[in-house]
């Protein structure tokens, strides 16, 4: 549970915080291009400060799904979660481009019971309704448990874990749906186009993600609910910060047609994050929707 809440916080911060402060979630395949369908790719998965150094928490391979080029589900093999990094293998036994990663949806926000503000989801200890101090309990019915002598008493954490726990007498409900996607693309043989779902923020590459070369611009389109998305914020960061002085992040925005063109200062692995907000959540109780898409791109020397 604690691990999950860290992840949610990381996902939220990648949308909210300035990029320099964010813990970044990443998937790093051992290669993006394989010559045949008899091969494996090993993928590392972590949330860290620097790309691609596992220095914070591992990502659990159990959260990962694999899609073969024909859209069927692939297998996560040899999953393992270390202290700093999760890792797993995928057998690329069909020709074309594979999609590997995860999607996480959550609803977070605030509501009021009387004059007190409560939170839904996020970091902290949840407190159910009806529990002492819970939003459904009569005011003043439960005092916080006595703290051991010497430690200051903590105020009750006004929080419920899910939307379903919001009591009937709640007012001022402000909820935001968040959809976080993190996918990487690995190709066996010739690249193929990856199918889109037409829902939420999606990556619709014009330059195939497995054909990027450092002396050519990459051109990518972003869609929201299947339509070109203008004004999507894009952050592009090269890996290997340890070997240079600055982060060298690029902050870009998609144009009217939803596309962004990216120049690569050097060959190597890049982390790309796109984020957007609108007022079209799929969950009726929410009023806003936050969307994030993350991928890792390999750019080779020409």
């Amino acid at each position, binding site marked *: 549970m604690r691990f999950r809440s860290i992840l949610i916080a990381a996902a939220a911060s990648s949308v909210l915080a300035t990029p320099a402060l964010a813990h970044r979630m990443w998937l790093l395949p051992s*290669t993006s*291009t*394989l*010559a*045949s369908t*008899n*091969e494996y790719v090993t993928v590392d998965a972590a949330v860290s400060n620097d790309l691609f150094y596992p220095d914070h928490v591992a990502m659990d391979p159990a959260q990962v799904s694999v899609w073969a080029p024909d859209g069927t589900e692939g297998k996560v093999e040899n999953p393992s979660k270390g202290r700093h990094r999760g890792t797993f293998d995928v057998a690329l036994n069909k020709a074309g481009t594979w999609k590997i990663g995860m999607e996480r949806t959550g609803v977070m926000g605030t509501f009021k019971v009387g004059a007190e503000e409560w939170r839904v989801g996020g970091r902290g200890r949840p407190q159910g309704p009806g529990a002492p101090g819970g939003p459904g309990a009569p005011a003043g019915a439960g005092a916080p448990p006595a703290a051991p002598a010497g430690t200051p008493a903590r105020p009750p954490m006004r929080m419920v874990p899910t939307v379903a726990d919001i009591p009937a007498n709640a007012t001022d409900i402000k909820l935001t749906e968040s959809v976080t996607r993190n996918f990487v693309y690995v190709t066996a*043989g*010739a690249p193929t186009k990856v199918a889109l779902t037409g829902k939420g923020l999606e990556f619709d590459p014009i330059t195939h993600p497995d*054909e990027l*070369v450092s002396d050519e611009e990459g051109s990518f389109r972003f869609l929201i609910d299947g339509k070109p998305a203008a004004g999507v914020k894009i952050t592009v960061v090269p890996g290997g910060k340890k070997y240079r002085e600055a982060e060298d992040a690029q902050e870009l925005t998609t144009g009217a047609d939803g596309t962004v063109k990216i120049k690569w200062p050097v060959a190597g692995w890049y982390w790309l994050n796109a984020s957007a907000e609108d007022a079209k959540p799929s969950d009726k109780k929410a009023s806003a929707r936050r969307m994030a898409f993350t991928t890792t791109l390999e750019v*080779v*020397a*020409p």
Partner: protein
Amino acid sequence: MTRTKILPALPLLAAGTIATPALAASVTVTVPQIKVAEYHRPYVAGWVEPAAGGNARTIFVWYDLKKRGNEPGTKWLADLRTWWRKGGRSLNLPADGLSGATRAPGSYTVAIPANLPKGDYVLKVEAARETGGRELVSVPFTVGGKGGSASGKTELGTVTVR
């Protein structure tokens, strides 16, 4: 050998003085001798592209044809990364008349397809070596006209079209 130190412009001049009326019908590739503790013969691919842009046409690819098992010779073909992108990945390997075994250091001559329409082309030769480097050499030439020559720095010696 001085071969590796020659500036790209010099072999062009040399070729110009030696060449009898050039037909641009064959390419000679030199696989250099490299003195390292662990030497593996390089994987080498050669292809032609129209100078004005267009489809690449592979004319040879040398790799470990017979290597089987978990890591067959074909596994490393993607390391010839420019060739792989430009057409290697769409070939059905081994390809008749194109695939060949790796070559020991020396000079090798390969015919350029006789059915290439007249015009300006660029011959590209790419080499990648296990535990070694990778190099790409480009030689502009004209079918029905002049040939050319260029030299790599490490993984490839002189590449001459004549």
